[in-house]
């Protein structure tokens, strides 16, 4: 089973076309193993990006250097998944 310990989902706000292009380029870097939950479309539309723990530092630095604002939507993906599993188990018992 694939675990997502420490993975985060970043909620990114691109404010111009250049940011959109930069985000697309970022997504093409296969070694980072990024997964767009919401793809970059146009300025003003939020982008949600799942970032594996080992790539977090590089991605956050990239965003900050390029002045692209973001917040953390999900602090730890695995924690949510564990919670989801627990809820399903409980429901099945009931």
């Amino acid at each position, binding site marked *: 089973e694939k675990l997502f310990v420490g993975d985060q989902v970043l909620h990114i706000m691109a404010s111009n076309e250049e940011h959109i292009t930069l985000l697309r380029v970022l997504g093409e870097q296969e070694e980072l193993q990024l997964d767009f939950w919401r793809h970059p479309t146009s300025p003003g539309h939020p982008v949600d990006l799942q970032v594996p723990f080992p790539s977090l530092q590089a991605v956050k630095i990239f965003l900050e250097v390029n002045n692209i604002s973001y917040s953390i939507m*999900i602090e730890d993906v695995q924690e949510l998944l564990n919670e989801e599993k627990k809820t*399903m188990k409980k429901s099945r018992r009931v």
Partner: protein
Amino acid sequence: ERSTSTFDFASYHTLDEIYDWMDILVDNHPSLVSKIQIGQSYENRPLYVLKFSTGGPNRPAIWLDTGIHAREWITPATGIWTANKIAEEYGRDPSVTAILDSMDIFFEIVTNPDGFAFTHSNNRLWRKTRSTNTGSHCIGVDPNRNWDAGFGGSGSSSNPCSETYRGPYAHSEREVKAIVDFIRGHRKVKLVISIHSYSQMLLFPYGYKTAPVPDHQELNELAKKAVSDLAALYGTKYTYGSMVDTIYMADGTSIDWAYDNGVKYAFSFELRDTGRYGFLLPSTQIIPTATETWPALLDIMVHVLEHPY
């Protein structure tokens, strides 16, 4: 004795549980609901469709599907609630009754069963099918980029490792081909609604080109009414419009294929986003999501009933 009244609609379920529930729904509403198999998935799982029909041959029909992207768990969960609602409301709610007295409804609750099973066993965040790709170690095709509508254009990927990989050719995925064959074979499907999550949108064609569809104004007005009625319950705000104008250019999507194949009313729903959970929407949100979506679905279905073509 089995009953849908003991089924927990407020919980997420495995594929086996959902398939078992389908049989229970059929058992409880034998004169209205039946289960048909339209094909097999890549890993040979049955592709089941619930058929709601009050009889009569060759009726015009509505097609609904949920779960084409495996990780969007809220969509089959909403589908289960909605299918149950349709069955329960026939004979009670005048709109549902009127629809089913004239039209059949076909509802594929788990459109991508291999992917869905994989999200329960190996990778909760899997999106694609599970077919292998010659010459690549990466698995799966995005089943919503695999349709023959602008297939291969710029709004999808040719890279098998991408989440939006379109596949080697249009309808290469069994899960897609089964629907294509079914809708083509039926010939009287008048409405297609494909349900996704999670960006609160109601979209219509086109996604693969910027030109508006000839029915743009009507679809836009209908979408406007639907999202307005959806918002009435909890104030959830949806945007609406053509796919290309509202989100991005996307080639090879199911609703574009449906429209180009004579289904005038083709919509793609993106269900609610709390802004906190994305695809991991807690199960406590299932009922509110399904409940608020219901009036919008009903608006669209009633409109199609009242505007035959």
